[in-house]
C-alpha cells in the first residue's frame, strides 16, 4: 500500500521530461529574446549617437541630399529614395511574373510540372546573393552597357539583379497560397458553369489575396535589405536617383563600402550607424505590414 502510494505521488519519468523540456524551451526563448533585444538596443543606441552625441540635426539627415563624409555633411535622402525605388521597381516587375508562373503551375499544368518545378524554385531561393551579384556584374551590366551606353552600372542593373533574386521567393510563396485554396472552391465554381479563367480570376486569386500580398512584401523586404549584390552593380554614387541608367547608392551599399574606412565613434561612423537604424526601422515596418496583410486574410 505504502509502496503504491509512493509510486503514485512521486514525479513520474514523463513529468520529469515535461519539466526539463520546459526549462530548455524557456532557456531558448530567453536566449533568442535577449539576442533580439540586444541588437535592437545596440543599434538604436549607436544609431542615435549622430543626433545626440554629434548634434547633427535629424531633419538635415533625413532630408539632406548631399552625402560628403569628408566634409561632415550627411544627407541620407538619396540613399533612402534609391533603396525604395529599386525595391519597388523589382517588386512591381516580379509580382506579375510570379503570379503567372504560380497560376500555370497550380491550375493549368499537370501535377508532374509542380513536382518538378517546386524543388527547382526552392533551389533558386537558396542561392547566395553574392552569386546573383556576380551574374549581374558579368552578364547584366555588360549587356546594359552595350544596349544603353554609359557604364551599365545603375538603378536598372540593380533592379534586374534584385528581380532575379526575389522572383523565386515570391513564386514559391504564391504557389503555396494558391495550393491552400480548398478544392471545393474550384469544384463549386466549375459547377456554376465558370470557365477556367473565370475561376482563376474571380475565385482563386481573391481567396489567395493575402498570401500573394505577403509574398510580395516578403520579397520586397528581402530586396530592401540586400547589400552585396546591389553594391556590386549599382555604381555607388550618392546622388538622388534621376534615371534608370544613372548610378546611385542604396542604404546598404553605402554601409558596406563605408564601414571599413571609418573609425568607431567618429561622426562618419555614427552616420553609417544611423543608416543602419533606418534599415532596421524599415524592415520592422515591412514585418508589421506583412502581419497586417496576413491577418486581414484570416477574417
Amino acid at each position, binding site marked *: 500500500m505504502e509502496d503504491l502510494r509512493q509510486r503514485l505521488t512521486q514525479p513520474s519519468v514523463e513529468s520529469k521530461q515535461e519539466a526539463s523540456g520546459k526549462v530548455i524551451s524557456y532557456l531558448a526563448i530567453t536566449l533568442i529574446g535577449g539576442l533580439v533585444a540586444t541588437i535592437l538596443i545596440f543599434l538604436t543606441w549607436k544609431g542615435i549617437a549622430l543626433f545626440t552625441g554629434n548634434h547633427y540635426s535629424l531633419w538635415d539627415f533625413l532630408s539632406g541630399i548631399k552625402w560628403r563624409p569628408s566634409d561632415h555633411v550627411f544627407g541620407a535622402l538619396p540613399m533612402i529614395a534609391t533603396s525604395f525605388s529599386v525595391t519597388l521597381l523589382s517588386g512591381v516587375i516580379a509580382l506579375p511574373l510570379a503570379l503567372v508562373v504560380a497560376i500555370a503551375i497550380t491550375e493549368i499544368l499537370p501535377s508532374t510540372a509542380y513536382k518538378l518545378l517546386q524543388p527547382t524554385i526552392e533551389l533558386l531561393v537558396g542561392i547566395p546573393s553574392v552569386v546573383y551579384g556576380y551574374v549581374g556584374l558579368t552578364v547584366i551590366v555588360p549587356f546594359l552597357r552595350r544596349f544603353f551606353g554609359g*557604364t551599365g552600372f545603375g538603378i536598372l542593373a540593380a533592379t534586374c539583379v534584385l528581380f532575379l533574386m526575389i522572383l523565386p521567393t515570391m513564386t514559391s510563396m504564391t504557389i503555396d497560397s494558391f495550393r491552400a485554396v480548398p478544392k471545393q472552391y474550384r469544384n463549386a465554381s466549375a459547377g456554376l458553369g465558370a470557365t477556367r479563367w473565370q475561376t482563376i480570376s474571380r475565385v482563386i486569386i481573391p481567396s489567395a489575396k493575402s498570401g500573394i500580398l505577403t509574398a510580395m512584401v516578403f520579397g520586397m523586404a528581402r530586396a530592401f535589405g540586400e547589400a552585396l549584390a546591389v553594391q556590386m552593380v549599382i*555604381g555607388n554614387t550618392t546622388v538622388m536617383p534621376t534615371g534608370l541608367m544613372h548610378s546611385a547608392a542604396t542604404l546598404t551599399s553605402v554601409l558596406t563600402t563605408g564601414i571599413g*574606412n571609418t573609425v568607431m565613434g567618429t561622426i562618419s561612423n555614427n552616420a553609417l550607424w544611423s543608416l543602419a537604424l533606418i534599415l532596421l526601422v524599415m524592415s520592422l515596418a515591412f514585418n508589421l505590414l506583412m502581419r497586417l496583410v496576413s491577418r486581414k486574410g484570416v477574417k
Partner: protein
Amino acid sequence: MKKTIIGVVIVAIVCWLGGSWVLAKQQPSQEKITIVGSTALQPLAEAVANDYRTKHPQTSIIVQGGGSGTGLSQVQAGAVNIGSADIFADQQDGINANKLDDNIVAVSGIVPIVNEELGIKNLTMKQLQQIFTGQIKNWQEVGGPDLPITVINRAHGSGTRVAFEQTVLKPGMQAVNAQEQDSNGTVKEIIRNTPGAISYIAFAYLNDQVQSVNLDGVAPTADNITTNKWPLWSYEHMYTQKQPSQSTANFIKYMQSEKVQKTLVTEAHYISIHDMKVEKTPTGKVTERK
C-alpha cells in the same frame, strides 16, 4: 548497442582532445602577430608573412583585410598587433596619431587610367584636376574625341583616394559626385569596358588592358616616384602601439629590411623605401630625404 557506440565515440573524442592538448602544451609557445587593415597592402603583407614564417616557424602571423580605418582603430584599441593603412594616422578621423608608432613599409604609386580606345596618353595636372572636379565634362576639351567623361572614383576614405585627392585637388576643392567603386580590380574592369571612362589605380594593378596617362609629360615609373617627378604616390604604413612586442618589432624590421624591399616589395610593384630620395609629411609636403 546504440549507447555503447555513443559511449565509445565520446571517449574517443575526449582522448583525442586531451591528447592534442598535451601535445600542444609540449611544443614551445607560439608567438602570434595579427595584422589587420588595408586591403591594398594585404597581398604584400601575406607574401612577406609567408616568407617570415618559413624562417621563424615559432611565429604565427594572421593577415586580414577590413580597410585602413578598421586597421587603425583596431591597433589603437589594442585588439591587434599591427594595423596596416595606406593613409597617415593623422588623416583618419578619430585616431590619435601620437599614441601610435608609424612604420613605413613600402611606397605605392598611383596612376590615372583611361579606356584604351580614347587615345588620350597625356594630361596636365590642371586638366586632371578639372576632370575630377567636374569642370571638364567632355574629352573634346582636352584634345580627345567628342565623348562625355565618365569619372569613376574610389570610395570615401579609401587610402588611394585620399592620396590622389591630396595631390590633385587643392584644399577646399570638392571632387565631382561620381560612381564609387571600392576595389582597384573593379575600377580597372570598368575602365576597360567603358568608352570615355577615367579613374586611377595603384601601380600594382596596372596592366595593358587599360591606358595609363602621363602627367605633364612625365611617365608613371618607379624611378620618377623616387624623385617625386611623378607626384602621385603614397606610403604604406604598419602602425603599432608604442612599445610593440618583440616579435612584432622583429617582423616589421624584417619587412623594412633591404632584402625584402628589393625582392618581395619590388616584385609586387611597390617601390622600396630605401630607394626614395624624397619624403612626404602627413599634410602632403614633399622634402628632400636626409
